[in-house]
Each structure stands twice: as C-alpha cells, then as structure tokens.
C-alpha cells in the first residue's frame, strides 16, 4: 500500500483532523450559499456548445473527404463535453439545485455505453465513499489492473500495460462492464442473479448507443455510410482515450496515497476529507483544458466536494492549497505529461512482482513529488 508516510505526508492528530475537516466544511458552505445565476448560465452554455459541436459533427459527415476530419473533431469534442463537464458532473448532482429535470442527477443519462443508473452506484457511491481504500474502492485497478502493492501479484498481471492499453481504447465499454464486477463473480463473491438487472440495463443502453452511432447515422449519409461509421467509431475512441487519461491521472500518479480498511474504520469527517485529499491528484493546464476534462483536472477538489458545480473547483483550489500548506500536507499536482508518466510507471511497475526494497524510498524518487511542496 502506498501509505500516507510513503507519500511523504504526515498523519494528523485527531484534533488537527477535526480542525482540517471544519475548514473544508466552511468552504463547502460558502459555495453552496453562493450558487446561482452564474453557475446555471455556465452549464447551459456548455450544453449549448456541446449540442452545436454535435450537430456540426453529424452534418460535416455529408461532405465527402474534406469534411471527415473536422467532423470527427467536432463529434469528439461534443462527446468529451457530454461525458465530462456535463454527464459526469450532472450525475454527481452538481446541478440538482437548479430544479431543471434535464440537469438533474436522477434523470440525466449520458452519451456513453454505461447506463447512468449503474454508474451512479459504482462511481458516486462506491468510489466516492471508499476512495482509495484498497479492497473497497473498485476504481483501484478497475478489477482488471494491478495498481497497488497490496493487490497480490499473479502472473496474470504481467499483462498490466496491455490491459491498460485496451482499457484506454475501449474505456466506455470498460466503464459499462465495470458495474458487473466480473472479478467478484469469478471469485464467487457475487451471484449471477445480482447482476441480472445491471446486465439488462447495460444491454438496453448498448443497443441504443450502437444503433445510432453505427447504424442510423451512417445509413443517413447514404453512400458515405462506411466513412460515417468509421468517423463515429474514431470519435468514440478519441473520447475514450482522453477520458481514460484524465481519470487515471486523478488517482494513480506518483505520490497518491492508498488506505487500508482498518485505518478507515469509524472514520471521522475530518479523516474523510484528509483521505480524499491524499488519495487524489490534480493536473495543471489552461481553462479550455480544465473544461475539456470536466474539471476533473481538479480531482482533489472534486473528491473533497463531489456535488459542487465543477466550475467552482479552480476558485476552491486556491484555498485548499493554502490549507494544505498550513497543515504540512502535500497537494499533488503537475502538468499532464508528468502525471501521465507517473501513471505509466505505476502500471509497469506493478506488472512485475514486488522487489524487496523499502517502498518509501521507491515512491519518493518518483517525479511527481518534486512539484508537490510548491
């Protein structure tokens, strides 16, 4: 396990944890009280742009040859916006307060294979509650990869880089299947009966998604159908690669801590915030970059306040950083390439059996930490 100490962090005393939690709570309350017109205008604007990109993308497929690349580009942007800044965030309930059923976490569904219903359980509940608790948070390795030394090595994991590559390419399928917990099924801790509903929902959604992207829209372009088919396929892959990378940079770069179930028993609110902080990592970048990543480039803030509108994360980040400094806690952030390198190293490292070296020294030498103290 990448314990808190292994990430170069210290443990806070119970009093410190309480005070830390109270500071986080104060931020949350301030933002909640301030939600209003600006936030709703922002999300409506993003929705509008997403729809425009989608329509442009679909239309450009009618222009043979010259239209193809811009069509794919528009459709990819549309799908990324739908997936990240809209879908992921709306389904977290970030805009429920607006009272618009179409931006309500209970009604919304996104343009990917994973049915909203399933995803909200696996992600909002399981992952966000048990973030980085090894053995409970199923996002640690997605039940496919080995991403922590506490997952026992097995020759199967030699394929870690290959699995990661496949998961990246077909990420939306991975996310959809994730909810079936196949590994648990194989291990006999889960029954087929438990999966019946979930599986049926996936099947219904998969049918709809494949129908429009791979049958109807191509058919509508007549003789250009094969090109449209290929274009839709490409846009989906581009979106998959992008979302995979952003999401893996959120929890798996160097310097991110994982936790044991024991240390999180009877967790206080302060400890919960502390775990969310040390279990997440940010990516630095431009405003457009943040929007295209659904502000999950502010994974730390997202994990501290999953149901606050994501556009608020940049402003919250300043404060969180300052608080971290005062408590002597690291604030894990870095440019995309650096965080990706950290993730890549981890994927490769855990493909192999553990070397008998003190883990602390190993992790400390990782590049991401150099930027941490800043």
């Amino acid at each position, binding site marked *: 396990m990448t314990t808190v100490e292994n990430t170069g962090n210290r443990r806070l005393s119970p009093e410190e944890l309480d005070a830390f939690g109270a500071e986080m709570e104060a931020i949350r309350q301030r933002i909640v009280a301030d*939600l*209003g*017109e*600006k*936030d*709703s*205008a922002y999300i409506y604007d993003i*929705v*509008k742009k997403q*729809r*425009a990109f989608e*329509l442009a993308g679909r239309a450009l497929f009618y222009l043979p040859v010259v239209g193809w690349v811009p069509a794919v580009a528009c459709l990819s942007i549309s799908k990324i916006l739908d997936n990240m800044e809209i879908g992921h965030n709306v389904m977290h309930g970030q805009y*429920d*307060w*607006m*009272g*618009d*059923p*179409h931006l*309500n976490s*209970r009604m919304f*569904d*996104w*343009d990917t294979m994973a049915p909203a219903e399933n995803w909200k359980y696996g992600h909002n509940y399981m992952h966000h509650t048990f973030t980085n608790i090894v053995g409970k948070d199923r996002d640690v390795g997605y039940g496919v990869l080995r991403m922590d030394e506490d997952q026992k090595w097995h020759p199967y994991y030699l394929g870690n880089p290959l699995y990661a590559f496949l998961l990246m390419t077909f990420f939306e399928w991975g996310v959809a299947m994730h909810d079936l917990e196949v590994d648990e099924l194989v291990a006999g801790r889960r029954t087929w009966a438990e999966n019946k*509903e979930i599986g049926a929902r996936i099947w219904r*959604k998969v049918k*709809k*998604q494949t*129908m*429009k992207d791979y049958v*109807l*829209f191509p058919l*509508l372009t007549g003789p250009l159908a094969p090109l449209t088919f290929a274009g839709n396929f490409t846009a989906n892959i581009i979106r998959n690669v992008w979302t995979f990378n952003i999401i893996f940079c959120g929890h798996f770069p160097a310097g991110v801590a994982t936790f044991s179930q024991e240390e999180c028993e009877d967790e206080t609110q302060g400890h919960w915030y502390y775990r969310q902080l040390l279990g997440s990592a940010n990516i630095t970048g431009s405003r457009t970059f943040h929007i295209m990543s659904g502000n999950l480039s502010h994974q730390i803030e997202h994990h501290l306040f999953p149901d606050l509108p994501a556009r608020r994360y940049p402003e919250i980040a300043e404060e969180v950083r300052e608080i971290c400094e005062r408590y002597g806690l690291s604030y894990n952030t870095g440019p995309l390439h650096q965080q990706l390198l950290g993730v890549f190293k981890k994927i490769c490292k855990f493909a192999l059996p553990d070397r008998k070296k003190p883990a602390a020294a190993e992790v400390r030498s990782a590049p991401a930490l150099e930027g941490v103290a800043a």
Partner: protein
Amino acid sequence: MALDLGGRILRSRTVAALASPHGIDRYLTQINPMLAAHEVRARITDIHPEVSAPGAPRVATVTLQPTSTWRGHRAGQHVSVGIDTGEGRRTTRVFTVSNTESKPGEPLTITVRAHEDEHATPYSISKFLTERATVGTLVHLSQAEGDFVLPDRVPEHILLISGGSGITPVMSMLRSLQRRTHRGKVTFLHWAPSADRQIFADELDEIRRQGHGVDLHILHTADGAPYLSPALLEKLVPGYREVPTWACGPASLIEAAQAAYDGTESLRVEYFKPPRTAGVAGGEMAFARTGKSVANDGATILDQAEAAGLTPESGCRMGICFSCTTNKSSGRVRNVLTGETSELPDEQIRICVSTPEGDCSVDL
C-alpha cells in the same frame, strides 16, 4: 398538415433513437424554446389582476399560450408550472387550470393567489406570477393531470363547493358547463373571507344576474356567514347527499364536507395539499441503507424517515418535484394523491406522497 407531419416525424422512433440519450426536445429547445416534440412549454400572453385590494394578497389570472404539444385539459384538472425565478433556479408548483376546457394547442389560464412559500427558492412561484412575471415570460408545463373532473354526461343536478382560491377548478367547470349549454341545475356554494377579496367577482355577479340554472351562494365569513355544516347544506340543497358534488378548498372546508357527506359516493374532493396522514398503520418500515427501522405509523415515508432521524432529500413535499424519489426494494405503498397502491419490487417512489401498507423497505 405540414406542421402535423413535422410533429409526427419529430415524435417518431427513429428520431428518438438518433437523439438518444438526450431526447429530441433537448435539441429543439436550443433553436427556439417554443419548439417541442414531447414537452410542454408556454409563454405568458396576459396577466389580469383579479384581486388587488389593499392588505389582501394579490390574485391574478395568467394566460398561457402553450406549445403545440399541449394536449388540452378537462375542467377541474391541474398542471405543474415550472418557472425560472432567478438565481438560476427553477421552481415548480401545481395550479388548477381556470378557463373552460381547452383543446390541443389552445391557450389556458391559471388563477393564482400570491402567498409565501417557505420551500420555494429563491422566490415563491405564486408571488412571482402575480407580481413579477411579464408578458413573454417562458414557463415549463406538464400536461393536464388529475381526475377531479366532470363526467362526459353531466347529471341533472350537481353541487359545486369551493373555498378561497379553491374556486379555480370549480369555476373552470362552471364555465365549461355554460359553454356546453348544460340544461340541468347547478348549485354553487362558495366561501370567501370578504367581498373585496372575492376572485372572479364580476363574472359571478353576471352569473347571478343571468341565472341560467345556476343557483349561486357566496358566503363571506367576515360578514358572519355560516360555515359549511349538514344543516346549512340541507337548507340550501335539500337531499344534498344524493346530489353529485365536487368540492375544492382548504383542508378545513374539505374536512367539513367529508363529515357532512359521511362517506357517500356523491362527494368528490380536491385538496390544495395532500392530507398529512392518509395511510394505514401497521407492519414495519425499514430504511435499508442506514439499517434503521420503525413501526409503520401510517404517515408518509418521508415523515417517518425524518421522525427516525434521517434526512432524505425533499423539495415540494407534495409529489411534484421528484426530489424525494427513492428506490423501494420491497413492500406495498399507497400514493396518497391518487389512492393507488403498488407493490412492484425495486420501484422508484416519491416518498413524500407514499405511505407504506404493512412491511416496506426503502433505500434510505
């Protein structure tokens, strides 16, 4: 014709499949908010003050021009009205339609009395409609709902009872009857605080003058008029228990009417708010996620959960905003608005208007 064809195409399964998962309306609204294939939206085309006496809450009749998706309404039905009242929030409330029966696409009116509403953020909808809304304001509507309506064949003699702003559905009935040239007799009893707070005062005067089979009794409590009682009913409408009756108004009036009719089938009522306790006690109400359970006391699941110290999400607390929707894993529940029961496993229910009947388990 062309419009209709367009509508048919927009509502087709192919278009639905192409627009999946967001639905075609999500795209149409980007072009023009009055374009819709399934949803109903409307623009305010007129706001007419009904009561603006000093000291009295304002009452106004708001005329709405709906999208072509409006399927029309029957007299006595109501609609949910959602309005962006500022601060980026939309608030939804239910109002009765007050004009005569409408056909698809035809305008409708709602008559609204301004009142404070502690659950509304940031602004009470009724205040907004009576004080701030202007011609051109866009509102979100549901289709007309509710079965507090007149039958297609209206009986020879009917009795309408209303109190305060409960007059709106009844007024819609009366107006529709006049348009249908109903030849039978209508007795209409209405309670209001005083003459200067009387909604539709001019029109009621007109009806009284013309007669036309309407026996009108306006009772102003401030002038010492008697309240609804069996004796009063018997005096005004001998044998009232046999007369098909529609009553709408505040809880006190409805309760008095229910007592007077003593369970006979001739009385149909409409509440402004659902009755607080309409369920049957007994069995166990289990809150699966928190592992708590209580003895079912017949109150709504929301009330029981709150009494058990849980804090489920809620909004309107009257079954219209869906913010309290929760998964019911097992058991039978009664919808206190419709009286319908259902016992499907893993069903999404609105806990503010559901009471358990016997053992029940929800995901809270």
